[in-house]
């Protein structure tokens, strides 16, 4: 990604991403209950939590996809809900499980996306070609495979390419490793490391603790719409041997005792 230019960074002191008391209620269920989180520049943060903890809801509110009932989010000091255009210019987003323009090929999708985001045709083309090659989607592109015909892992990869294409400052990725094969996962990790080495900031959500532990330097644990812990990996882990232990200690887990599920052995 060497030649990419980053958007001019305002307010040098502002953190890369700030979630400020984000709250959202769906049909009397508090999906997010005052979620606050500060992600410093250049960090790679893992947002972990059990299913239904409010990870996706919080991230959706942070990137402008879901209007919060109260609270707001800032990208490099720019308020996502007051100045969406400016904030979104600095953001790269990969949501989980959503549709794309399904009847375009990966290359056509990137071409459309780059020009919509104001990149000129040549820049878009060069970046798109490079990205397809790195993510090993170039073979499918030669065959003219449409996004609708992509596998789940390929969809993740083309989604990541759309998130990266305009060289954002902050990446917010919802479950980027889900369904991605081990080889592609290594490529993905290398891309993310390159991105943070260049000063970029990454937030990924996941429920795979080992992955987060191995990949990120900061971690936030979220459950029932609240942030239970937030800090560097070492701080959050404390005396626990693994992040999983910390997670279980904070979130609680039902232990499976000897008497449970005995029918599984029959």
């Amino acid at each position, binding site marked *: 990604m060497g030649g990419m230019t980053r958007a001019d960074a305002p307010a040098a002191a502002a953190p890369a991403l700030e979630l400020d008391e984000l709250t959202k209620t769906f049909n009397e269920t508090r999906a997010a209950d005052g979620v606050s989180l500060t992600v410093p520049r250049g960090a790679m943060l893992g947002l972990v939590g059990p299913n239904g903890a409010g990870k996706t809801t919080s991230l959706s509110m942070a990137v402008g*996809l*879901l209007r919060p009932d109260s609270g707001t989010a800032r990208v490099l000091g720019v308020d996502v809900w007051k100045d969406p255009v400016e904030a979104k210019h600095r953001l790269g987003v990969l949501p989980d499980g959503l549709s794309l*323009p399904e009847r*375009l090929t990966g290359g056509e999708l990137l071409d459309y996306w780059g*020009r919509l985001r104001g990149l000129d045709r040549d820049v878009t083309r060069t970046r798109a070609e490079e990205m397809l090659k790195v993510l090993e989607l170039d073979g499918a592109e030669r*065959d003219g495979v449409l996004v*609708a*015909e992509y596998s789940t892992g390929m969809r993740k990869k083309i989604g990541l390419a759309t998130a990266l294409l305009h060289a954002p400052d902050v990446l917010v990725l919802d479950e980027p490793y889900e369904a991605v094969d081990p080889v592609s996962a290594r490529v993905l990790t290398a891309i993310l490391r390159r991105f943070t080495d260049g000063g970029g900031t990454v937030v990924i959500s996941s429920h795979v603790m080992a992955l987060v532990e191995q990949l990120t330097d900061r971690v936030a644990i979220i459950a029932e719409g609240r942030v239970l812990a937030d800090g560097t990996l070492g701080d959050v882990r404390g005396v626990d041997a693994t992040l999983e232990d910390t997670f279980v200690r904070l979130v609680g887990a039902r232990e499976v005792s000897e008497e449970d599920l005995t029918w599984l052995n029959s």
Partner: protein
Amino acid sequence: MVELLIRLKFTLGRHTTGATRWFSLSLILLGAGLTWYLTVTAASAEVRSSLLMLVLAVWAGGWVLGPTITNGVGVLRSQYFTLLPLDRNRVGAGLLVTMFIGAGALFTLVATSALAWHAWASDAAALFLGLLGMLLLVVFMVSLSRLVFRALGAAMHSRLGMEIASLQWGLIVAGLFFGWVAVQPALAAVGSLSEFGLQGTAVTVLSVLPTSWPVLAVDAAVAGAWGAAFGWLGAFAALTLVTVLVTVRLLAPAVTSRGVRRRSRPLGSRVFDGGRPLLPDTPLGAVVGKELRQWWRDPWRGLELRSSLYAGLFIGLLGLISYLPQIAPFSGVFAVVIMGMSSSNLYGHDGTALWLSVVGQGRDTVRAEIRGRQVAIALLITPLAALMSVVMVVATGEYGAVPYVLIGLVVALGVTNGLAVLLSVVAVTPGVDPHRRVDANDTGDNQLQVWLTLVAFPVLAAPTLAAAVWAGAQGTPWLAVPVALANGALAAWLMGWAAHRRLESRLPETFTRIRYGKEIAAQAVPRSGGLLDRLERGALSANNEIKPTGS
């Protein structure tokens, strides 16, 4: 298993509401009432027999078209059961059985019991044939209904299938709008129906239809020709059995693989490739390119474009065969209006793909998003509709209609184009998300948009209509063409402007409507808002939701 499936069906049914259900139910009740009325008041056994054939054919038609028109809400999908370790055909059979539980099948039974009455009233000995025919008819119609519905869904995976589905849809739409042209003489005769029954060729045509065979069986039995009677009923029983078997086969869950190797590059992939690009290097150009490709390649969009064209064509042909050749040259205009209706739920159609427009929002992107869609629709429909009208004018020799056709085309192109994008934003109704789509009507419901377009089009085109009437009376119809041009352009521009302003201010809310469903979306519509808010509220309550809610 069947009992469980039936319970599941009722559970799903409890979560669906809507006007369509009550409308279909009242239609079914009315149909059952009318069937018995005609049967009881028929002057003779012969008249009764011909009327029964007609009525049963109409019932079968209703079963074939009904689910396609009403979006198949509350129907169990075979994909739900793909992973269960059950025999595929047993699941298929179970799913078919669930179709017999409900008001539709019940009142169809009430209607077909008129056949039993016919048999008993003619000759008590024929009663058991009538009863058998009654049951077989219900099984046949319900299975046929499922068969057509699933066959349409399966058809969406091939180009030829999509073409056939488009023809069917075009015929339905043409029938809905201009069926009266053909039906009027029949309706005029309704008063005397119970006295004289049907005459001449109508009876010959009707008796060929399978739904008439049980009636023929009863008639043969009454006449003492028991061999013929068993022959007719046996043939119908065999046909019913075949229908049931094929339907079970189609309803069985099937697993198709994704990521298959393509045999050829998709349509339009070379149009902008290499050489000089045809579209400008701007967000607008990007959206137009994306939209054109989606229209060319997406079978669901193809269905809408093609069925609009077929509907226009069939309306023209209906005019020709009903001795109203003046209608034919306007077939292009009809195609344009119907295309406007079918493209009035574009964002529902694209489903959660709207996230790209939300996170990619720039200074001008939402405007480009709306205007690009308008340009793409205009580029697609204008040449085809114009060509259709030209061919029709030449074929009918109605050259005097040319200025009026031009006026109609111009104003319709502008007004429906603007309406389509405005309604797409305000009344957005999601269907099954594009990458999970299977059946022909998995796209979002757009009944409110269709009705609104029907009402709004004449209102918004009123200046042109007035000008055309005036200029026509003066003998200089061409004078109305500039009025049509101004009217159409202004409508397209203004409604496009309203659409992008609305979308821009409610981008996350529009996405919420698609992603999280109507209940959560309803919380975000102002209670005492303006016209557009009221429209949005209307769409939330009137249109059916076939999308599973939540994430």
